[in-house]
């Protein structure tokens, strides 16, 4: 199957293209040098062409998401569209059904999305949902930060067994990377408590979040995993938490990367860049966080941008979610996973006139505007915590247009003038920088830059064409056009198949599920398994034989191999 995209204004920062008219040749799902005359031709008509969008952090599948759906029929009924000849019915806004999840990402020109967190014990559920999300390539990050085996091996300072556990855990969950949420806090929440800083000792396990984070980073690099440790810092959502965030990011200096990428990715920094001491003197410390990133090359982050309106908070940060529910007097779901982690789901409505919300909204944008290198600050909304992913175009427009930002600032609570730097920031990102924050940078952070996030030969043929001509539009002034173009792709091509045309789904091929198969020396695996067997004998409520995700749950696997490598440790 051959395809030729002619006349596109290609923005491909990885390959140095900033909008030159370049033809793209596609054969058998890959970008190639050239194709025969039999190729189907798409004339991009001078319009913007980018690699398909790549999202490193979104809650799209699994137990939390489904609890969100069950709790919120009022959300499900708000985004309903009936079935068509090629699409199943769609429902929901903050918690879409699986079909809407795939179609809507594709309609925005996104082709690869990673589920932000799955507990090993519930990974089968995550994969059942991922299997049913059409079109996009996907994967899931596996939680390790509060698992009993993790904490035991960290306490014993046994990195070999910890590496073996992580390798085995990724296999058991068919996971793509190491996720660490409020490390240590998941265990504390088992008795309704939490950690308050990275040096708190988790009782019964005698480890600190600091030790957990550093150890996981070490084994992540020992295993040479494609992605780095993906960290949701302790103290999320508490005024003053920026200090914990900076302390956590400092830890990255203790480990050297095994690949050309960061050793720590800190997620949804909007919620972790807070100054002040309470809701009264709450203020932005995005500048401090951005400043850290500007001065370090071993840490990356993503925004977690907030969108006004309805959202559903859902994270593995169980204690934070309970606190949220209490504060908001909202309905609350909680889902502890034995020996592993926690989770909580709470609906929220972000309001422009609430000072705290306005300050938060500005923090997200500041993070992007103050971090000089767009490779270090990816565009996310921590869907659906900050807001649903269908609003990415709003974020793009805000980043590209100071005019739009100033208009928005006029309509939100005036606290942003005192508590944020945003009103004074006039930086406007260009198409290349946006392409980095939504494609190239994400692919690099995830360790998938060989096949994703760019349009060079060898890349997967995942391409989006948007209805704007980069050389004829002034994004600063015509931000409404930018927003509408990025909301609804003129073309989305996935693996060489046209799946979206003029914002409509034209085909629904299944995507692939990325997961990492890491090898460790057999003796360490065997030693580690002795401990695991004991855990199942005594503490888990299911049998070890029924624990691991079976092949039938991942029907289109894309396996990335990894394994133990000696690594320099500072």
């Amino acid at each position: 199957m051959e395809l030729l995209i002619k006349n596109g204004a290609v923005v491909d920062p990885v390959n140095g293209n900033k909008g030159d008219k370049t033809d793209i040749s596609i054969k058998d799902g890959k970008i190639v040098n050239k194709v025969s005359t039999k190729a189907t031709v798409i004339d991009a008509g001078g319009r913007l062409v980018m690699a398909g969008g790549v999202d490193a952090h979104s809650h799209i599948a699994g137990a939390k998401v489904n609890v969100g759906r069950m709790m919120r029929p009022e959300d499900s009924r708000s985004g309903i569209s009936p079935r068509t000849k090629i699409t199943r019915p769609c429902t929901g806004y903050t918690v879409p059904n699986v079909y809407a999840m795939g179609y809507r990402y594709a309609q925005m020109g996104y082709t690869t999305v990673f589920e932000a967190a799955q507990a090993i014990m519930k990974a089968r559920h995550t994969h059942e949902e991922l299997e049913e999300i059409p079109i996009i390539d996907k994967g899931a990050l596996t939680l390790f930060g509060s698992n009993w085996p993790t904490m035991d091996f960290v306490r014993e300072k046994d990195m070999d067994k910890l590496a073996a556990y992580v390798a085995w855990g990724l296999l058991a969950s068919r996971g793509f990377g190491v996720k660490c949420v409020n490390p240590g806090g998941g265990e504390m929440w088992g008795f309704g408590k939490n950690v308050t800083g990275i040096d708190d000792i988790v009782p019964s396990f005698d480890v600190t979040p600091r030790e957990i984070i550093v150890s996981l980073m070490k084994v992540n690099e020992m295993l040479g995993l494609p992605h780095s440790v993906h960290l949701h810092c302790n103290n999320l959502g508490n005024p003053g938490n920026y200090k914990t965030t900076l302390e956590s990011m400092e830890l990255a200096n203790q480990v050297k990367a095994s690949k050309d990428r960061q050793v720590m990715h800190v997620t949804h920094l909007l919620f972790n860049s807070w100054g002040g001491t309470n809701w009264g003197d709450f203020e932005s410390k995005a500048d401090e966080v951005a400043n850290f990133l500007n001065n370090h090359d071993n840490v990356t982050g993503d925004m977690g941008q907030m969108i006004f309106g309805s959202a559903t908070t859902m994270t593995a940060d169980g204690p934070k979610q309970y606190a949220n529910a209490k504060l908001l007097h909202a309905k609350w779901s909680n889902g502890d996973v034995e020996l592993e982690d926690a989770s909580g789901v709470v609906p929220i409505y972000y309001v422009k006139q609430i000072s705290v919300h306005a300050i938060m909204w500005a923090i997200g944008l500041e993070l992007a505007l103050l971090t000089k290198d767009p490779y270090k600050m990816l565009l996310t909304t921590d869907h659906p915590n900050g807001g649903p992913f269908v609003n990415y175009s709003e974020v793009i427009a805000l980043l590209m247009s100071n005019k739009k930002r100033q208009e928005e600032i006029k309509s939100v609570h005036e606290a942003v003038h005192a508590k944020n730097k945003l009103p004074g920031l006039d930086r406007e990102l260009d198409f290349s920088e946006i392409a980095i924050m939504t494609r190239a940078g994400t692919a690099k952070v995830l360790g998938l830059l060989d096949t994703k996030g760019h349009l060079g030969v060898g890349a997967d043929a995942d391409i989006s064409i948007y209805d704007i001509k980069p050389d004829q539009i002034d994004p600063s002034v015509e931000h409404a056009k930018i927003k509408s173009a990025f909301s609804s792709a003129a073309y989305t091509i996935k693996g060489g198949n046209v799946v979206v045309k003029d914002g409509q789904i034209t085909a629904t091929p299944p995507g692939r599920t990325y997961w990492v198969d890491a090898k460790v020396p057999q003796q360490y695996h065997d030693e580690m398994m002795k401990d695991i067997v004991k855990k199942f004998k005594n503490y888990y409520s299911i049998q070890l034989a029924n624990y691991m995700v079976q092949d039938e749950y991942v029907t289109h696997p894309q396996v990335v191999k990894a394994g133990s490598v000696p690594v320099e440790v500072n």
Partner: protein
Amino acid sequence: MTVITDALCPFCGCLCDDLTIVVDNNKITDIKNACKLGSAKIMGHHRIEAPMMRADKKSEFKEVSYEEAINEAAQILFKSKRPLLYGWASALCEVHKKGILLAEETGAIIDNTATVCHAPSTLAVHEKGLPSATLGQIKNRSDVTVFWGSNPVHAHPRHMGRYSVFAKGFFQEKGRKGRKVIVVDVRKTETAAMADEFIQVQQGSDYLVISALRAILSGHADVVPESVGGVPKEQLVKLVDTLKSAKFGSIFFGMGLTQSISRYKNIDNAISLITELNAFTKYVITPMRGHYNVTGFGQVCSWETGFATAVDFSRGAPYYNPGETAANDVLMRKETDAAMIIAGDAGAHFPADSVRHLARIPVIQIDPYWNPTTEVSNVVIPVAICGVEVAGTAYRMDGVSLHMRKMIEPTLPTDVEVLDRITERVRELRGE
């Protein structure tokens, strides 16, 4: 002879996964670790051996081929203006997915057995959420366990041994001795007999009792009358103290709460009690689901349609409103003009008026066994037994999904095959 270890039991929401099954010549000859209920299900009993049909329900069934039965089923559904696809709870998730697709294709209402069981819990979750945990959390941590309107000794025999009362855990090394067990029920059940404390409430007054507990907990004991639902105020105050004293409290609830007056509001209220207890100490609540995969239907339906059950596809998009779109809602109004009942026994569990209406309309039954639903059916299609002859996915009462093994080879087609063929035939009839 084959020995299958770590097999899963296809009976109740405990979804025990430590069974050992001995198979000889494609027959199950021994089962270890299962309770009586599970063993009976796995051993099975006399099955329907071939598809059968009858034009009118008063006549005898005539044996037919699968082809004929499937064709007739497709015809019935294709012609129907308000079809109902009901049951599902004794089938695997793979079957549920086919059912939802068929409901979409035929513009039907799809509902599951929770409608006579725990559907009220789902309604409560819409209001209050669900603060819960996997069963291992309770095993490892819970020192106060309450069974409210639930009698596990009778209905979930291995629950207390595996998860909640007798089990030993990391923080509960003493097992039973380290736990306080409280039963709240309208009569002294077998479970109440072995509990540390039994609180008897008057029939239908659970809602009032829970509200009273919440009032006491929130510091407003002064407005609570001297007796609520037959329980003296003193006892309620003492109960609140006991609940607060837990390091990790757990409440399990059953039909006693979901099916008595105020129904879903009972659960809703209980969930609020749990949420409010969390201000003092850790608490979780879990529904004691009946069928081994009723939870699975709720999960699959939620991720595919946005709604957990009782979904009406008549206009091509999912519409959800229990009280309007649940099986008994449409049956009692005599709106349903055709029904397919699969892996669920409407004939046995539905109100008399619903069953009377089923007797008037064309009914397709897909089930391995003869049961009261067979009596009101026109087309009966026997299938392989999920979880015994067919492998697939099921969800335990706490939402943990597990893969059920095949124990013996099926001799009949599976639910999935039958539904696939019916759906294909419906599409042919529609001219696709």
